[in-house]
């Protein structure tokens, strides 16, 4: 038992820090500090810097452009880039469809898509959820009917993050309606500029626009855009969703939230003293720090031992998403009455109004509302609990 980082890991962290000190753009650091929302250009700027360094897809196999880092090193990397406030690398190409393509795709698909993913030339989005198929994903109804060398796709996707930025969408579609629902699904890559594709924005509680509805009306998709075999799409989706669970705990985000919370709690006052010295607030914050510590260690325990059971990703998702919510909830509590003015617009880069209250109050309530999603997406807390008991209970 040795719960300290090894020499290689310490050196690796240093290397990442030096790279970030030199290459992470000041303009992005400023935006992050001021809590201005990142837009497409910001994401691309940063992803291309990482791409140039060869660090855009570190977890990929080395032959496809990965870095060969250990799980602990991947974790260190995530921590450090999050600590400087870097925009998150969009997962849709790198984390989600990329591994599906290099695992199940044809050579032609690999050649066509993988380099463009690494270079951030294509912006991908994910077409899984449908209005009638949320937690019960396999009941999806978007249909793809073979017509010569093309599929004709009809249906609707929902909760599609960044569809309004996307060049391509990877979709689950139904290619056989006569079999058990999981057995009639295929995995299709669709150009967002195809005729018949339209995008409708969905604004979320924080006032931001990230997710969308995507409508597919008689969209014609070349058969070479099918990944793997027809009607085997559910297998690829399960593979993809299991990858989605990496970094599931969101430690980096929680740490950044807590750093901000410390700053706020040192600045705000209660009964004439810094809020951080208020016994109730301090106890709450300390408990949250202890939970962060537990989450971080549990994550490292899973990474280094594989965990004691397959339930670990779900365990981390549950606790991690709770902390991602609790930390911003405490931030909101920390600003007291200044939680009341609604300043979502002030988080937009184009905004040029006059902010209300100290700088640190602006984003508090919108971010609180935004974070309600973390226990819903990527498998809700309830779905994760189902998974845990399915794995651990023999009933």
């Amino acid at each position: 038992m040795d719960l300290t980082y090894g020499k290689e890991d310490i050196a690796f962290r240093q290397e990442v820090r030096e790279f970030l000190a030199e290459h992470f753009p000041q303009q992005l650091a400023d935006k992050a500090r001021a809590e201005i929302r990142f837009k497409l250009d910001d994401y691309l700027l940063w992803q291309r810097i990482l791409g140039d360094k060869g660090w855009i897809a570190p977890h990929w196999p080395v032959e496809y452009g990965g870095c060969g880092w250990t799980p602990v090193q991947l974790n260190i990397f995530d921590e450090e880039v999050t600590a400087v406030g870097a925009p998150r690398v969009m997962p849709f190409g790198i984390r989600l469809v990329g591994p599906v393509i290099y695992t199940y795709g044809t050579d032609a698909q690999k050649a066509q898509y993988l380099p463009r993913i690494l270079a951030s030339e294509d912006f991908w989005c994910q077409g899984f959820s449908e209005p009638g198929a949320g937690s019960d994903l396999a009941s999806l109804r978007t249909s793809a009917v073979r017509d010569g060398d093309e599929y004709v796709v009809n249906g609707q996707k929902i909760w599609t993050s960044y569809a309004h930025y996307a060049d391509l969408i990877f979709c689950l579609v139904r290619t056989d309606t006569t079999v058990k629902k999981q057995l009639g699904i295929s995995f299709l890559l669709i150009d967002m500029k195809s005729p018949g594709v339209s995008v409708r924005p969905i604004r979320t509680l924080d006032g931001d626009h990230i997710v969308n509805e995507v409508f597919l009306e008689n969209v014609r998709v070349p058969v070479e855009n099918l990944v793997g075999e027809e009607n085997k799409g559910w297998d690829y989706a399960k593979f993809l969703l299991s990858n989605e669970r990496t970094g599931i705990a969101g430690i980096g985000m929680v740490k950044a939230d807590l750093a901000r919370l410390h700053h706020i709690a040192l600045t705000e006052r209660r009964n004439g003293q810094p809020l951080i010295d208020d016994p109730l607030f301090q106890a709450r914050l300390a408990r949250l720090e202890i939970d962060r510590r537990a989450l971080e260690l549990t994550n490292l325990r899973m990474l280094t031992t594989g965990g004691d059971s397959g339930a670990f990703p779900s365990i981390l998702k549950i606790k991690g998403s709770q902390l991602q919510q609790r930390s911003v909830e405490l931030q909101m509590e920390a600003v007291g009455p200044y939680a009341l003015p609604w300043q979502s617009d002030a988080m937009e880069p184009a905004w040029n109004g006059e902010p209300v209250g100290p700088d640190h109050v602006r984003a508090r309530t919108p971010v609180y509302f935004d974070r309600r999603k973390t226990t819903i997406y990527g498998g809700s807390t309830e779905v994760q609990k189902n998974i845990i008991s399915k794995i651990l209970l023999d009933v």
Partner: protein
Amino acid sequence: MDFSYSDEQRMLSESLEKLFAGHAGRNEDRAAADKLWQACAETGLIGLTVPEDHGGLSGGSADVMVAAIEIGRHGVNTPFLSTAVAGAGALRLAGTDAQQQSHLGRLAEGGLKVACAFAEPGARYDLADVDTRAIEDGDGYVLSGDKCVVFGGDDADLFVVSARAPDEARHGAEGISLFLVDAELAGITRKGYQMIDGRGGADVTFDNVRLPADALLGTQGQGYVTLEAVNDLAAAAICAEGLGALEKVVELTKEYLETRKQFGKAIGEFQALQHFFADMVVDYEHIKSLVFEAGAIADSADVVERQQAVSAAKVVLAEDGRRICQQAIQMHGGIGVTQEYQLGDFTKRVAVADFAFGDADHHIARYGRHMVAAAAARVAQNG
């Protein structure tokens, strides 16, 4: 012992139900909002607590509660709370006959919007933390200071402002005076905004604003008692708004559980969600009892009883009400985090009730002080 509405309260509730039907809350435009405000005046809502002598209904805080529940249930935005509850309350409690005469009638008619500017930057919820200064100057005063998160401050015609003499320390209940300040006076700058639920508010700066002698509301240096009383009236009312909003939150969740299907059945058939829902109902019913009590007692002359009842309601509304909203969003899944679906508007209204007029920590501390005093007195009595 009777928890049910009186006949008058039932009529008030029903008339508001009709009045508010079809109003759109945060998305209402200015013209529609003005029209609604006039309609409120006509039903007597604005003058609800104004004495009959001044054209009001002489209602009490229990009637305010009945009205505020409907406001919360329908998610409408009016300056009811700032003008008809807090503003009218301040004038009733501390105003001279002349002051009441010149303001309350107009207020009840919908012709005068009032906003209480009590809170200051850095003071959090401490109403005795006042750095705004009023210098005596000839017959009148010169007022300077910053006020923040003023409910209805964006379009008030008249401010009620707390201030103290220049040489006094910033903290403490002693020495605070209240002033009626015409919003059009020179030296007033307001930064207006919408709050979480779309209602209006403002940060307001007073820069050497010259006030006439009759601007003083109540006795000089003795304003704190009024401040606290008015804040409790407002706190009880916003709890009732929150309760109305929570009723809708529970109702929407019930409907969603009954109609939304997953894995071939209504999601309300899943036991985990059933139990989640039962938790919401248990919390909701206990919040309701305390909000009723606060409504019944918010204008009581017994200050200790009043403060305990209001603080109790405020604590559960903030803590348990927030949790109900979180659970409701969670049970709705994706649709619950969209701006389009009405659940969000109601949870945002609950959030306003959460952070306005003292948060849970503020009120639990106040409740705790009374609790300790009572415990100590009991021990002293029983030896």
